[in-house]
């Protein structure tokens, strides 16, 4: 006879979460999850962080996950709780962030009856998650929780939803210990030795190589970033990072070319365009990278390492596909490179570097700051000063961003030396990501400096989380580059739509200083260049959460820019440079 069951589904759930190492859960209560909240109330090992909107709970869990390498955990109620979480789930799916999201559901006998606060959560979230579950039997509950954590964190990471009908969490349920395995899901992580040998043979003979490393290297853990650095230094090859890969290679290293892609550096994009061998690692040839596909790096042979076979040959056909974990593949490449006695073409590499140095001379990120009293702050300068001042303080710094020009300027001008320090919404480009993500980061790293580099429009999308910062005394710093426009959209309107600024002016802005104060935080403002440093210092010295409202040049555009539908060598450079590049084609106009 089965042992008598003594614990409710909710208690079993929390026990399973504990066994999965969950310490923090971001959530918001409601009718369907009341039994879970009751169980949370009666224990101390899992800390619940009450957000102000369910979307923010997921972004906070993303920030927590990306900055620690662990799985982020979310708890929301049925119906509107679950639908509010969807944007966060898709964000995590696009950026490969491991999340387990528990959603309440109406009791099993009411499912399908249009019951109060019922939504078809598994139906709605099927394309928004890596996988999802509806628990229909108490005996499945613990196993499903363990499986969900396994699926979220193995292979290509992603969000997993567990939909929990109310009767399942109320009724008694049996426990099952985690097995550390999944009955059938077995993503490949070990590289094929023959493919590695082929890759090394190709790399050794390269005359104009490049390493193009993305977010997958960060997913693979800090050891993978260390191996990437070692591999690049051993080979002497130039290396570029995607937006999601920043920090996987130290930005201060002379071999680093900066970010590539639509707003990447001149040298990174021309190296991609002109290379003869490309080593892509944990990067997915996103359209922000490739520009016009039929003009993308036509002359190169390509090696692509990715843990997800569907990322390979999706947009760009490659010559040597390697399905593997980035860290394991890099270790294998390094060993095979060292073991191979094939010579490298030193003269060719030296002339490649001379070419690269000539491209670097363009200084494609340069800008001019008027240093006179009353000078308008250039947004790039504000980021540069933020970087220099925080670096001088030698504190651990984590940066999150919202979405827009400020995000790109942050990527260009804030240099990252280590992985997991840069949290941004790349794939979905979700305005409103940065503040809740920063909450999650600050919770995981209470003593670190956590800064959300924001735009005045984006910050309003999850501004209610100021309340969460206050409740948990999270000293997050919100650094708003306030250009009074949805700058990134305004820039496209200027370049593509005859400067008709349709609905992109940030009208009726709040007074951010007062807004900060009403949320128990500190507000400060810099209007012109001579005020900037003092505000940054005051912000960093402040023990509370801060909103620093930095008035920046409204007309500034983000360059370089490869317009949609253009090729890498048709880049637009800024006003600092001679007129350049392509016009925008009609085909390009249709792209995003």
């Amino acid at each position, binding site marked *: 006879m089965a042992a008598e069951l003594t614990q409710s589904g909710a208690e079993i759930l929390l026990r399973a979460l504990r066994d999965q190492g969950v310490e923090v859960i971001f959530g918001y209560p409601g009718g369907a999850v009341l039994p879970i909240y009751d169980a949370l109330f009666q224990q101390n090992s899992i800390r619940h962080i009450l957000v102000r909107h369910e979307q923010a709970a997921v972004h906070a869990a993303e920030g927590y996950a990306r900055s620690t390498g662990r799985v982020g955990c979310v708890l929301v109620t049925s119906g509107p709780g679950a639908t509010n979480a969807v944007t966060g789930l898709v964000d995590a799916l696009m950026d490969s962030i491991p999340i387990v999201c528990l959603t309440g559901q109406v009791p099993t006998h009411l499912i399908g009856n249009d019951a109060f606060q019922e939504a078809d959560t*598994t*139906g709605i979230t*099927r*394309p928004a998650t*890596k*996988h*999802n579950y*509806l628990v*229909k039997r108490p005996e499945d509950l613990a196993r499903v929780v363990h499986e969900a954590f396994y*699926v979220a964190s193995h*292979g*290509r990471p992603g969000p997993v939803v567990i939909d929990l009908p109310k009767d399942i969490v109320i009724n008694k349920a049996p426990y099952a210990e985690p097995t550390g395995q999944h009955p*059938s*899901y077995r*993503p490949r992580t070990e590289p094929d030795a023959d493919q590695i040998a082929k890759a090394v043979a190709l790399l050794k003979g390269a005359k104009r190589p490049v390493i193009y490393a993305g977010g997958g290297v960060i997913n693979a853990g800090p050891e993978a970033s260390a191996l990437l650095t070692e591999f690049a230094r051993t080979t002497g090859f130039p290396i570029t990072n995607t937006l999601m890969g920043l920090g996987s290679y130290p930005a201060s290293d002379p071999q680093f070319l900066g970010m590539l892609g639509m707003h990447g550096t001149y040298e990174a994009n021309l190296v991609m365009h002109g290379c003869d061998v490309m080593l892509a690692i944990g990067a997915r040839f996103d359209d922000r990278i490739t520009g016009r596909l039929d003009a993308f790096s036509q002359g190169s042979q390509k090696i692509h390492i990715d843990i*997800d*076979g*569907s990322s*390979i*040959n*999706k947009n760009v*056909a490659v010559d040597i596909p390697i399905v593997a974990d980035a860290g394991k593949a890099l270790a294998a490449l390094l060993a095979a490179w060292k073991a191979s006695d094939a010579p490298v073409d030193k003269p060719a590499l030296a002339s490649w570097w001379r070419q690269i140095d000539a491209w670097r001379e363009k200084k494609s990120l340069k800008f001019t700051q008027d240093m006179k009293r009353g000078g308008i702050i250039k947004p790039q300068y504000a980021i540069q000063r933020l970087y220099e001042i925080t670096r001088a303080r030698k504190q651990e710094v984590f940066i999150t961003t919202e979405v827009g020009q400020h995000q790109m300027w942050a990527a260009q001008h804030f240099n990252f030396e280590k992985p997991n320090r840069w949290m941004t919404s790349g794939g979905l480009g979700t305005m409103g990501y940065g503040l809740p993500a920063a909450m999650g980061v600050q919770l995981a790293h209470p003593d670190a400096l956590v800064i959300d580099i924001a735009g005045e429009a984006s910050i309003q999308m999850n501004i209610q989380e100021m309340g969460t910062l206050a409740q948990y005394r999270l000293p997050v710093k919100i650094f708003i580059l306030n250009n009074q426009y949805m700058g990134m959209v305004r820039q496209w309107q200027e370049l593509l739509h005859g400067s008709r600024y349709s609905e992109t002016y940030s009208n009726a802005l709040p007074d951010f200083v007062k807004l900060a104060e009403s949320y128990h935080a500190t507000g400060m403002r810099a209007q012109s260049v001579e005020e900037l440093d003092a505000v940054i210092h005051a912000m960093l010295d402040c023990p509370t959460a801060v909103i620093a409202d930095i008035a920046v040049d409204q007309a500034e555009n983000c360059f370089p820019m490869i317009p949609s539908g253009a090729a890498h060598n048709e880049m637009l450079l800024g006003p600092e440079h001679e007129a350049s590049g392509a016009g925008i084609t009609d085909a390009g106009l249709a792209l995003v």
Partner: protein
Amino acid sequence: MPGISDTTQRSATISVLVDNEAGVLARVIGLFSGRGYNIDSLTVAPVDEAGRRSRINIVTSGTSMVIEQIKAQLDRLVPVHRVADLTMDGPHVARELALVKVICTGEQRVEALQVGTSFRARVVDTTLGSFVFELTGATEKIDAFIELMRNLGLAEVSRSGIAALARGTRVI
């Protein structure tokens, strides 16, 4: 084997072994509709004794790159165990079943029966004014049968979609 950058369209019969769990078919179909892939035919049924595994057979079309992508996308679904491209992996047999109703009288009745016989179709229902033929075979054979019946009172068709297996000792 055509290279990955070959841009000609081809048809592919893909068999997928999946855990027979709730939502798995929706996941597969959602993948096709969400990513804009074609489904020309789709069948699904449990295939092991315990009813834990189902086999889904999908006929689709696209360039080599798209078909490789479809396979990779299927393969990454958590409840998917195996994905096989029967068209590329070697010879295979593919069959479907059709029920074809014709409503006719007089001369046409005789002719319809004759066509039925030559296609080895079985008559599974008869009334004075109608027949239902049952026919199995390759898709082209069924297409041809239906074509012929158009002039002989074709009223309604119900097709199973294809079931497919590799020839010889190979299993997926």
